[in-house]
């Protein structure tokens, strides 16, 4: 059974109506190249109704040269039997020309007659777009070319022509493409992006960024690749300059930081010098009256001792007050003085044994002292007066942490308060560890204990540990603090075995 759809197509009116409504102009010529049919669009193109066309030749509508061209073309199709496809410019009656894609083929009809079937597709829009794209590629700062698979460059924009130094679609273009293919295997068939030096004729090799789309189907039978070439030599130079600027910026920032640190250090040093002078003056001015008070108290004690006035505890309080005041002054001096160290290599263990013996006398009786010396007579460069201040501070802190003033056993923080002083050598350093079995310190306290003026005591300047750290740092060493709540505290002074350059200034001279 035949499809009813095809039955309807057998109706000539339907068929003609379809042909008249196609967006392609269709014409049929007989063997003598006279029109035998023209659809509506073809009539419009020529500008004549079909009746005016039938039986006429191209020469009846087109001028000499154009008509001859068509005629020769038509003959080749009719006689040679070869289908012809060509782009033509067709003149219209209005005088305008129109780009068309013409296809002409020979048809042998069932009645034995030979016909030429022609179609014209309007290329106006396509040509317009093509021209736009070409104009676009002419204005971009990029070399653009279309390479056909199997060789040949079908399009190159003006900038590519400049880069290859001649005809981009000719030998010069091919030579540049070959250069790029050598630089990057796979180019241009494989989609890629690479930077390479391109020898531009008559110029220095330039850094170029090359991009290829790889083989693409763009409509024809063969595939082609769209390649763009961007001159990045200036960008490369800019990038290099940028990197250099960035490097210099970093360097500058680092130097600025160093400068700021040096300034801070100078300011700090300046302040410390001022503080040192101030403290020295205050120490001198306070210690003189303190001396007079102490001596006078001593005299009072002597004069009144036998009179049973019951003033012993008051006198004792005065004396303790004097000691406290003196200790505060000493701590202020320890912290604010940064005089040049007078380092001499000395047997640290022997020296330490000596000062510990002396120091033990001044500690509350409840506190036991263990000294474990392990330096084996090692000679260590240090300033005895300063280092003694550091150790006195640490031992006093340890004692106070465990027994306070030492006068009220009910307030002791531990049952058997003891301080161990230990020395040992580790590599090129020696350490003096002052360890107690007191209440220890929380992480928060450890974090802040090196800060000047930070104190956990009800009395105290908060300058003890900072002074110790300053002294040991001045020796080129460091202060290590280990403690946890309930487990005592260990303060370790690390000192180098070789003397370091001491840059600190002499402080004020007052006595």
């Amino acid at each position, binding site marked *: 059974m035949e499809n009813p759809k095809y039955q309807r197509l057998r109706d000539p009116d339907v068929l003609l109506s379809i042909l008249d409504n196609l967006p392609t102009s269709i014409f049929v010529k007989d063997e003598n190249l006279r029109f035998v049919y023209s659809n509506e669009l073809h009539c419009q193109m020529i500008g004549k109704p079909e009746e005016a066309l039938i039986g006429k030749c191209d020469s009846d509508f087109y001028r000499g040269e154009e008509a001859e061209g068509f005629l020769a073309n038509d003959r080749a199709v009719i006689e040679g039997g070869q289908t012809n496809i060509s782009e033509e410019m067709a003149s219209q009656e209005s005088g305008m020309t129109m780009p068309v894609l013409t296809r002409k083929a020979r048809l042998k009809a069932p009645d034995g007659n030979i016909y030429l079937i022609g179609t014209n597709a309007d290329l106006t829009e396509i040509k317009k777009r093509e021209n736009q794209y070409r104009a676009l590629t002419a204005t971009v700062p990029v070399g653009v070319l279309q390479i056909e698979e199997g060789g040949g460059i079908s399009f190159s924009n003006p900038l590519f022509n400049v880069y290859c130094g001649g005809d981009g679609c000719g030998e010069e273009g091919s030579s540049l493409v070959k250069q790029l293919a050598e630089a990057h295997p796979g180019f241009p068939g494989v989609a890629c992006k690479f930077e390479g030096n391109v020898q531009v004729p008559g110029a220095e090799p330039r850094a170029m960024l090359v991009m290829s789309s790889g083989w693409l189907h763009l409509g024809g039978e063969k595939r082609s690749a769209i390649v763009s070439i961007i001159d990045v030599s200036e960008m490369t130079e800019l990038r290099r300059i940028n990197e250099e600027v960035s490097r210099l910026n970093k360097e500058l920032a680092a130097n600025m930081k160093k400068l700021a640190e040096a300034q801070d250090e100078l300011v700090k040093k300046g302040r410390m010098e001022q503080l040192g002078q101030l403290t020295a003056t205050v120490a001198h001015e306070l210690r003189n*009256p303190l001396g007079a008070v102490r001596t006078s108290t001593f005299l009072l004690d002597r004069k009144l001792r036998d009179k049973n006035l019951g003033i012993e505890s008051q006198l004792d309080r005065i004396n303790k007050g004097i000691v406290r005041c003196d200790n505060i002054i000493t701590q202020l001096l320890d912290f604010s003085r940064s005089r040049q160290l007078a380092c001499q290599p000395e047997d640290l263990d022997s020296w330490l044994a000596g000062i510990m013996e002396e120091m033990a006398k001044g500690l509350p009786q409840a506190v036991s002292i263990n000294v474990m010396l392990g330096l084996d007579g090692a000679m260590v460069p240090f300033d005895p007066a300063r280092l003694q201040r550091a150790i006195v501070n640490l031992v006093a802190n340890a004692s106070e942490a465990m027994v306070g003033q030492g006068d009220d056993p009910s307030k002791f923080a531990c049952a058997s308060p003891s301080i161990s002083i230990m020395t040992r050598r580790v590599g090129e350093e020696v350490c003096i560890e002052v360890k107690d079995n007191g209440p220890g310190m929380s992480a928060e306290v450890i974090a802040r204990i090196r800060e000047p003026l930070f104190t956990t005591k009800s009395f105290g300047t908060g300058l003890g540990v900072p002074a110790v750290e300053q002294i040991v740092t001045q020796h080129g060493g460091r202060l290590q603090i280990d403690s946890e709540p309930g487990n005592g505290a260990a303060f370790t002074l690390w000192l180098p075995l070789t003397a370091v350059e001491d840059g600190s200034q002499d402080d004020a001279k007052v006595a």
Partner: protein
Amino acid sequence: MSRQLNILVVDDDAANAESLAELFQMDNHRVIVAYDGKQAIDAFSLNQVDVGFFDVMMPNMNGVDSFIEIKDKFPDARVYFMTGYSADDLIDKAVKGGALGVFSKPVDLGKVLATVEAEAA
């Protein structure tokens, strides 16, 4: 049996100088008080001084320079220093010049009296 000494106390701080003088007097020593370095030199010239207790920083002439001059005239002079704050260079100079000891102010009176006792022995 300790002997009576002529003790020179030199301090520009009068309260200090006088309270110390009184203390020594209580132990039956004779005390001369001077308030600066120049007066100390005069005191040594005018008196038979057995032992001196000198402050360091004083107006007119500091204790150490005064001591050096005294030591030049009286090589046997016995002098101790008392200082509120160690001015290291001056103290060094004093010790090198023959000072017998340095007490930190406020001085430990037990130590000072023990020193005097030893001088008197």
